[in-house]
């Protein structure tokens, strides 16, 4: 299919696609008009699009992730509705081809853009502050990483606008189905290139934050004194660095099959489709640990703070993170036990899978032991944690069940599997992200979120989640295969699908409450201001700054003596020479740069050109990217100086605000 074949007439497409096109175009136009009317273009450019401040970049990641999560939830709603409505004679409202595109988009968007976006957002917001640094190791590269991520998000949405189709292959696009012969349209190409672009961004972020943690910690903060969120993130970053190149290479080979007629994964000419599955899961398994480890880190911080107690078993937690990181490279075959390997291979990977669960169990127990004899405050973040304990345990034991190859043969690719991994991702990653969102919101905005609405949101999510996925566990054990848009009425399963649909509706209500919470909290921000910078009586360094932190994070570099660095300062009753009183020095920070945003735009063009085989355009885009990078990387003066007087003024203002709150 070439670009000249594409129809831009919305009436030529199905109602669904036309609806999506309209929503996107309308949304973008509304944004542009709004910005013009409010005369905010300058502000947007200066404060957000060209910023190298990781706190701002973190917020942008979360905004993009939230938007993509809404789209992913929309896809989920369509699937649930389809399966609840279709039974027997009725075939629902989605034909098979569209259903397949919807579940492909749902998985791809949720994992690569919603979850990864939330994770990178948290890294940007928290890691520099928690280690007492002012910035990341490579601020410009950080900006490029974000814009590549955003470019990938744009590309995946453009699929519906130009081409009108997405891949219909599942979120991992196994060949030969994803090869040229069986998926000749541009859908799979959009999938490949949006992931390649976003993947490069992820890899660069991995390198950036690894070097930040290793080389930019405040004096006195040895590795064993770092907050556990930083340790968990370190594990995740190691996984990103070593796993993402596998994805880049594998997607690259699939792209070569599709564009240059190569035969890596074709079913003839000496290709081997099973090699794709092997490689994609060698990446794919570390990927899911990339997602969950930071969530574990969030819980470590939340549980310690809201139990008013230091975390139980710090050393064993660190060892658990290390073990999980290492072991996650040794289990990937459990995603394809049924692909034909012999007993020895299956047994090895099955045992490794069971072993890795033990390390996670250790962490859960440590959190519970932290709570024991603590002075617990059941705030919203703690509720998210408790919801996690319930759901993640259910999903976890389902996983251990499936680690036995013989059992996996029965439930592979059934709804039991689908329920398992959603439990892990929603119960683990999403609940963790929500706990983190609520916990750190006041730090980065200066006002607290409404607690009541937060609790309503939590209960809707928890009950909705259980209602949506417990039926799927049952259906899976009864033999329901995944990814089907229609199940025979004689099976008597429709009732369970309806329950699942109701569950999703509850989840959407939960999302509604979260949006409402944001709006209401913003409107009420006068009353729930955080003036002290430390609304929860926190333990780690970020709570020592104002809310929001000054753009330079710390006026004076902290001198760390203990774990829970800030708690140690508060306990010792000395306000610490680095909090409040030291002589102010000038600070050097990176200047803004438009090149990150520009590279993002050029990447969209590059991806688009690759998809539609517009080689001249692609070459031009690539050349432009190289030129822009060369210009930027040849610049010697990329920083500016903040005068000591400015720093003094900001710190004095903060001290006054703190005095007010006290």
């Amino acid at each position, binding site marked *: 299919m070439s670009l000249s074949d594409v129809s831009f007439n919305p009436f030529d497409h199905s109602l669904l696609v036309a609806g999506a096109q309209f929503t996107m175009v309308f949304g973008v136009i509304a944004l542009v008009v709004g910005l013009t009317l409010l005369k905010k273009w300058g502000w947007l450019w200066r404060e957000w699009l060209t910023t190298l401040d990781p706190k701002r970049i973190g917020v942008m990641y979360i905004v993009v992730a939230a938007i993509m999560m809404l789209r992913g939830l929309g896809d989920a709603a369509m699937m649930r509705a389809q399966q609840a409505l279709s039974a027997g004679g009725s075939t629902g409202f989605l034909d098979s081809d569209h259903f397949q595109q919807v579940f492909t988009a749902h998985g791809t968007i949720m994992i690569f853009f919603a979850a990864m976006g939330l994770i990178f957002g948290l890294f940007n917001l928290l890691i520099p502050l928690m280690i007492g640094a002012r910035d990341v190791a490579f601020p410009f590269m950080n900006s490029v990483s974000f814009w590549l991520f955003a470019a990938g998000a744009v590309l995946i949405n453009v699929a519906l606008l130009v081409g009108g189709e997405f891949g219909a292959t599942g979120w991992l696009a196994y060949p030969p189905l994803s090869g040229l012969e069986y998926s000749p349209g541009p859908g799979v190409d959009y999938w490949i290139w949006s992931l390649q672009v976003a993947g490069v961004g992820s890899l660069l972020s991995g390198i950036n934050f690894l070097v930040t943690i290793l080389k930019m910690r405040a004096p006195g903060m040895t590795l064993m004194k770092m907050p556990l969120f930083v340790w968990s993130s370190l594990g995740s970053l190691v996984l990103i660095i070593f796993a993402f190149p596998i994805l880049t290479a594998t997607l690259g080979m699939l792209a070569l099959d599709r564009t240059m007629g190569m035969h890596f994964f074709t079913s003839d000419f000496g290709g081997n489709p099973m090699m794709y599955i092997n490689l994609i899961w060698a990446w794919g398994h570390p990927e899911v640990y990339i997602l969950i480890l930071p969530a574990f880190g969030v819980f470590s911080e939340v549980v310690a703070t809201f139990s008013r107690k230091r975390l139980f078993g710090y050393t064993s937690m660190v060892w658990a993170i290390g073990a999980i990181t290492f072991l996650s*490279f040794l289990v990937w075959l459990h995603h394809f036990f049924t692909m*034909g390997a012999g007993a020895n291979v299956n047994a090895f990977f099955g045992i490794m899978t069971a072993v890795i669960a033990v390390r996670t169990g250790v962490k859960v127990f440590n959190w519970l032991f932290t709570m024991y004899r603590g002075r617990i405050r059941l705030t919203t973040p703690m509720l998210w944690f408790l919801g996690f304990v319930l759901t993640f345990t259910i999903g976890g034991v389902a996983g251990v069940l499936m680690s036995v190859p013989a059992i996996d043969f029965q439930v592979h690719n059934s709804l039991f599997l689908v329920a398992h991994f959603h439990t892990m991702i929603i119960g683990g990653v999403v609940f963790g992200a929500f706990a983190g969102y609520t916990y750190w919101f006041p730090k980065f905005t200066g006002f607290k979120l409404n607690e009541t609405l937060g609790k309503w949101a939590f209960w809707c999510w928890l009950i909705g989640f259980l209602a949506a996925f417990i039926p799927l566990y049952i259906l899976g054990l009864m033999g329901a295969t995944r990814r089907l848009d229609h199940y025979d009425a004689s099976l008597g399963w429709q009732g369970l699908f309806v329950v699942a649909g109701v569950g999703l509706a509850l989840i959407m209500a939960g999302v509604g409450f979260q949006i409402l919470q944001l709006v209401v909290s913003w409107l009420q921000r006068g009353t729930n201001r955080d003036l002290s910078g430390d609304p929860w009586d926190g333990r780690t360094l970020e709570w020592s700054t104002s809310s929001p932190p000054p753009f330079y994070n710390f006026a004076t570099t902290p001198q760390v003596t203990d774990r829970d660095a800030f708690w140690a300062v508060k306990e010792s009753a000395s306000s610490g020479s680095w909090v409040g009183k030291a002589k102010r020095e000038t600070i050097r920070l990176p200047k803004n740069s438009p090149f990150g945003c520009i590279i993002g735009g050029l990447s969209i063009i590059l991806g688009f050109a690759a998809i539609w085989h517009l080689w001249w355009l692609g070459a031009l885009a690539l050349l432009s990217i190289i030129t822009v990078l060369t210009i930027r990387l040849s610049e010697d003066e990329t920083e500016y100086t903040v005068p000591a007087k400015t720093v003094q003024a900001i710190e004095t203002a903060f001290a006054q605000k703190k005095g007010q709150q006290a």
Partner: protein
Amino acid sequence: MEKTSKSQHMNLTTYVTGFLLSVMLTLAAYFTAVDGALAPRSIGIVVVGLAIAQLLVQLVFFLHLGRETKPRHQLLVFCFTLVVLAIVVYGSIWIMDNLNYNMMPHEMDEQLIEEEGIYR
């Protein structure tokens, strides 16, 4: 100009030694393979061995691995890379080779039973 932390030990001898060793290892591998005097399996072992030797030569003499000031983060990252590499490469070859396990002809049954240690 302030010296970089790795530059204290670089000198001409290092580079020339590394270069000459590499050339020798290259030629040794080349003539082993091209000559054909050894059995193919032995050629394989020798060539791979020489490649690894040259890797170490270049790591030490050209890339100055191990000469960092502490903490030796580059060395750490390198070791991790080797571990992951070993797992992914060996694991993939093991898995891919094994995927036809259940489709082997019946004539191979006796051999497999013996290899796997399956007792009747």
